[in-house]
């Protein structure tokens, strides 16, 4: 891995983690309406994939979308303000945590609908293909979403049309309180790829490098006109499904339970000489500061004007 890439990844991983910790804190203080789904623990997936993408590539995200948005380059101040429902939010405060988006950055939106992204990503890939652009679309989805019919329809459609799209499953072992091993008749998500005549790979989703490499191959394939790839990333979420979840369904011996992808990457990056300890330390404190600033920014941002309630229904 190039130094530049490693530095970028480590920065984004830290920004995501600090972001989620702050969201958790201010949610606890009652400053965020509704509910939030934290990405902490899964940073290796978003950053490993996004390290391969450009602004002009598209992603679709999920209800657990903060990590994707940060890694895709969304403005962090705007994100925090959005999550707090403020005027300076990316969506003017009208979307909130589940609808963080920035189409100019290729981020087609977090999504409150589980399984809502398969077709959207295929559609973005259809645009890329039809307009002749040299890009890809990436669809992030959970293990739980893999049992929605939209998984089947989206993957089949993308495959028969050879669309430049990559389906990235974040298998964190649970959909809400239901274990993947109960809900899915197949042992892995990756093995379902064969039903759509596309490669299905399963990687250690706590290992950025593994995700990064798998994505590289998938992009090559997509850009060569060979169609989609399914990548399953084995991961775990540090907190509950949403904040407030008692997590009774988690077990002592859940795989990945005691791993932290950020600590692992720091170790590996320092060991391989990609990043020095000092660089790592300063990335960490810079990230912490970035997020603190974002909270400060969001806190002083005013509530949206009431008139905005009626705006932006139609173009």
């Amino acid at each position, binding site marked *: 891995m190039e130094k530049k890439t490693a530095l970028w990844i480590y920065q984004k991983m830290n920004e995501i983690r600090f972001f989620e910790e702050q969201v958790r804190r201010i949610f606890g203080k009652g400053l*965020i*309406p*509704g*509910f939030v789904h934290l990405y902490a623990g899964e940073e290796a997936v978003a950053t490993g994939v996004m390290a391969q993408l450009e602004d002009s590539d598209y992603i679709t995200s999920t209800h657990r979308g903060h990590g994707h948005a940060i890694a895709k380059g969304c403005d962090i101040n705007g994100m925090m303000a959005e999550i707090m*429902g*403020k*005027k300076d*939010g990316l*969506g003017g*405060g*009208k*979307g*909130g*945590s*589940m*609808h963080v988006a920035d189409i100019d950055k290729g981020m087609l939106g977090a*999504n*409150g*609908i*589980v*399984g809502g992204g398969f077709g959207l990503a295929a559609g973005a890939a259809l645009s890329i293909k039809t307009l002749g652009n040299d890009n890809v679309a990436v669809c992030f989805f959970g293990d*739980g*979403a893999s*049992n*929605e*019919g*939209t998984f089947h329809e989206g993957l089949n459609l993308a495959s028969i049309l050879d669309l430049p799209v990559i389906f990235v499953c974040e298998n964190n072992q649970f*959909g*809400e*309180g*239901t*274990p993947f*091993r*109960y*809900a*899915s008749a197949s042992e892995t998500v990756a093995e379902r790829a064969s039903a759509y005549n596309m490669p299905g790979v399963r990687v250690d989703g706590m290992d950025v490098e593994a995700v990064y490499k798998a994505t590289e191959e998938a992009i090559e394939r997509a850009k060569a006109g060979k169609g989609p790839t399914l990548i399953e990333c084995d991961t775990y979420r540090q907190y509950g499904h949403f904040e407030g979840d*008692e997590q*009774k*369904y988690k*077990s002592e011996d859940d795989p990945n339970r005691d791993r932290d992808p950020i600590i692992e990457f720091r170790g590996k990056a320092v060991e391989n000489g990609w990043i020095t300890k000092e660089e790592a330390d300063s990335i960490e404190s810079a990230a912490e500061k970035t997020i603190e600033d974002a909270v400060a920014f969001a806190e002083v941002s005013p*509530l*949206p004007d*009431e008139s*905005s*309630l*009626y705006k932006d*229904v139609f173009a």
Partner: protein
Amino acid sequence: MAERKISFMNAITESMDMAMEKDDRVILIGTDVAGGAEVDHLIQDDVYEDAFGGVFGLSKGLVGKYGRERVIDTPIAEHGYFSAAVGAAATGLRPISELMFNDFIGFALDPILNQGAKMRYMFGGKAKIPLTVRTVHGAGVGAAAQHSQTLYGMFGSIPGVKVVVPSNPYDAKGLMLAAIEEDNLIVFSEDKSIYGMKGEVPEEYYTVEIGKASVTKEGKDLTIVAIGKMVHVALEVAEGLEKDGVSIEVVDLRTVAPWDEETVLESVKKTGRLIVIDEANPHNNTATDVASVVADKAFDYLDGPIKTVCAPDTPVPFAANLEKAYIPDANKVLKVAEELIFDLKKE
């Protein structure tokens, strides 16, 4: 004996429990209606502990009592399990199928629209679909555009579907038990923002008639027809106007499809004025339906225009102040009522 007070959500839990106790054919099916399926430490001596008991906790404890054969966690696959619920209902079970948020209907509409609602008719009366669809609607908890809609009106537009929207714990229990007893597809739509509301609920088994509105408060000058949580807005308005000497009759629709024309028309014929409050978006909803029927069948009794107070024609916004501005409340109703009250004072 002092009446027992329990919450809206506990009333619903109790009703499901009683129905399952009474009839083995009643099953509950949905995503995380128990939660924690196949998690070892949640199984002790063949008794299951739930991890969620529904995301709102309304089915807590049921899997412990009735087991995983009757409290069925599903994959996240709404079309699949809703359609299974219809198939099961047609063949001898009496399922309660949960749509976690009514907003997810985009994944489960066909089993209702084209299968459950139409089988009996298409088969010339030879099918029964004793299926209760429990779902959750409404804004007010900061859940944004995809988790806050009020869609019972959409269900209510479908022939073959009955739709029930309780406004208080007593009705919630009685209507749920009535729904489960019926041999028809019933959508039971709960406003999540009143789950905590407490009210008197008898401990015994009882039903509230489906299709019957209730006159929550009698009055003679103006009828307010309201649905679910909006009944409480109506009562607040009534109380306020009462002080100005205006007497309001509040009709709680309770069943929004098919709704109780008789009770509504009778009330309007008496008062001559009507406001309908509905949290749904303003077009093609239950409020406009009620208004149109009254504008036809009670026209000669009307002393003023028929007013509807609904959410605006926008998605539900996230920001707290915008969401508050989105939901119909007493102020908005009062403002709209002015025109009618003005007429009234002139008389």
